[in-house]
């Protein structure tokens, strides 16, 4: 029996099924939440400082190392920011092929999260292994989709993890037509598999939750924004990417080695990721993605648990749009723009699988980096995750510590946090203040 009049401390020392290492600490005094901290204790990785003095040509390869799951997000944002700094214009065909390779990353990352990391939560399974016992065909289907996303990255990026083909101005080399053509049948299969996955997940019973989020995402007039556009937020505000830092800032909090982002006006939290993208861009989904969203009655959604469905709708979009680009692929276009290296400063924002990512660089006239700023999606969601936990906790306090810890972990996993990116795994500590040692959950 839980004594709600006592102080409690709940600690999840290591959050499972997320990337990176962090923990969760909750201190309660009766029904009052005294502390609720997403502890990120991985050492700072100091990538921004590592870049100082390096050639602009090295930036994509170095920033790719921030994450093995979403290297394209870092590379793409970096090369675009450097292009803006040096006044480099890329061809429309390069823009299309950039979207294509980004879709590969969305597929492999979102499918991994959906099938191996988050889906077990909705079937009361402890792990993907347990899920595979009950749903072998669905898990196999997911792994096959992920494989095809990886294949696209290998063909275009040279390898699936830390690809090597993205450059300022375009690509070092474009794959031959036959290399691309080999992907067509795989992506046709993948599109149907992704549609079936949405149907499977939409039938789940989700916890009720209304986060009333301020969604922040890229928005573009002509496409479901992924690598360009304006930043949409608030009721209906649109700003150019170069105004990002006038509206959003980062601050250090003692319990985290990752910086936490907030909106500068009011220091409020905000939400980035698939739900935010769908909020701002649903009408620009591909035809099959729009059709399946209508079929499952998807409406503007502030329930983070349903993010798994949103993510899966985006996988449908990614397969279909990738197919469209693959079918019209022309390897004869120049892979890379010619340009003159010059001093300058520029920024860019793109949509990583987990949400908006922002980079800004200043280079000297030899193209050496003088300044670098990198804001990953998980840093931006971190304060929002703590805010969500504060909303969730009062509704679950009467439950035993272990269950509280598990439910907190599930909430955090909705965000697919990449703690290694933000600097960079999670555990929950529950201190009930009853004189007993805090409960450490998932050690």
């Amino acid at each position, binding site marked *: 029996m839980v004594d709600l009049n006592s102080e409690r401390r709940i600690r999840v020392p290591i959050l499972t099924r*997320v990337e990176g290492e962090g923990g969760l600490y909750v201190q309660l005094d009766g029904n009052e939440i005294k502390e609720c901290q997403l502890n990120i204790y991985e050492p700072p990785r100091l990538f921004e400082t590592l870049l100082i003095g390096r050639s602009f040509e090295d930036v994509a390869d170095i920033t790719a190392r921030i994450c093995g799951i979403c290297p394209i997000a870092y590379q793409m944002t970096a090369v675009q920011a450097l292009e803006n700094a040096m006044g480099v214009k890329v061809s429309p065909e390069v823009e299309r092929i950039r979207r294509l390779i980004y879709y590969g990353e969305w597929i492999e990352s979102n499918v991994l999260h959906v099938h191996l990391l988050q889906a077990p939560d909705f079937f009361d399974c402890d792990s993907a292994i347990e899920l595979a016992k009950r749903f072998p065909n669905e898990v196999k289907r997911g792994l096959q989709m992920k494989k095809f996303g990886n294949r696209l990255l290998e063909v275009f990026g040279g390898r699936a993890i830390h690809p090597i083909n993205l450059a300022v101005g375009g690509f070092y080399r474009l794959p031959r037509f036959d290399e691309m053509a080999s992907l067509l049948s795989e992506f046709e299969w993948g599109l149907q598999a992704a549609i079936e996955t949405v149907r499977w997940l939409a039938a789940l019973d989700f916890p009720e939750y209304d986060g009333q989020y301020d969604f922040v995402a890229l928005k573009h007039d002509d496409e479901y924004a992924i690598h360009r556009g304006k930043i949409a937020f608030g009721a209906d505000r649109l700003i150019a990417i170069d105004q990002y830092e006038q509206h959003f800032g980062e601050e250090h909090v003692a319990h985290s080695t990752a910086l936490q982002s907030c909106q500068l006006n009011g220091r409020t939290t905000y939400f980035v990721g698939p739900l935010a993208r769908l909020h701002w861009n649903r009408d620009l989904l591909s035809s099959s993605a729009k059709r399946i969203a209508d079929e499952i009655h998807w409406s503007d959604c502030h329930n983070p648990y349903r993010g798994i469905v949103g993510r899966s709708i985006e996988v449908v979009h990614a397969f279909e749009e990738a197919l469209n680009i693959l079918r019209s692929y022309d390897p004869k276009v120049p892979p890379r723009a010619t340009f003159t290296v010059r001093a300058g400063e520029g920024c860019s924002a793109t949509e990583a699988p987990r949400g908006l990512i922002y980079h800004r660089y200043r280079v000297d006239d030899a193209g050496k980096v003088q300044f670098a700023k990198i804001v990953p999606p998980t840093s931006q969601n971190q304060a929002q995750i703590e805010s969500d936990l504060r909303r969730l906790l009062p509704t679950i306090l009467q439950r035993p510590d272990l269950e509280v810890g598990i439910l907190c972990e599930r909430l955090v996993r909705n965000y697919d946090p990449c703690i290694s990116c933000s600097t960079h795994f999670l555990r929950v500590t529950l201190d009930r203040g009853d004189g007993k040692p805090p409960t450490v959950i998932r050690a």
Partner: protein
Amino acid sequence: MNAQHLNDEAQKVKAWSIFGIGSPIGDDQAGWQVATALRERDPELVRMESVRVPLDLLHVLDQCERIVIIDACRIIGIEEAGDRALPERILDCDRARVYQWHWPSAKLSSARWLNSHGVGVVQVLELADELGILPSEVIVFGIEVIGDVVCETEMPAVVRSPHLDPDWKSIAECIWQKLHVELEAV
């Protein structure tokens, strides 16, 4: 040993797919270094792939008859191991200890494996087993690099002294001999 025997043996070895797991950096390079040394020893006979994270194995396991996985690991202490028996140590050299497991083995959990998203070698093998894509034979070699010195070859400010590296070729030779013992049993 006649030509036919050699040919049979070659065919048996060909049926092994060797996967080195790791990266080019620090102690994590053990899997790649040893797998590469095995291929150099006999490029005709060994199908070898270097993979970065254990999850990548799931994409290739259904194409393999027998697999060997080589990865860096840390063996847990005897106190922590409790009832879990420690694995067989097959080599104890100056800078590394090498352990061997046959799947399925509860002893695999007596090692800590580097992983991403909490999905390491053990979880990947369990998942593959559940999905029915696990090859009939799986041997895992774990390499525990000894010492506190972790240097990164790619950082010019920190020079990795070659003598600090384990002798990857000796480790590969030891694993090669062990694989031949396995072949005799096939």
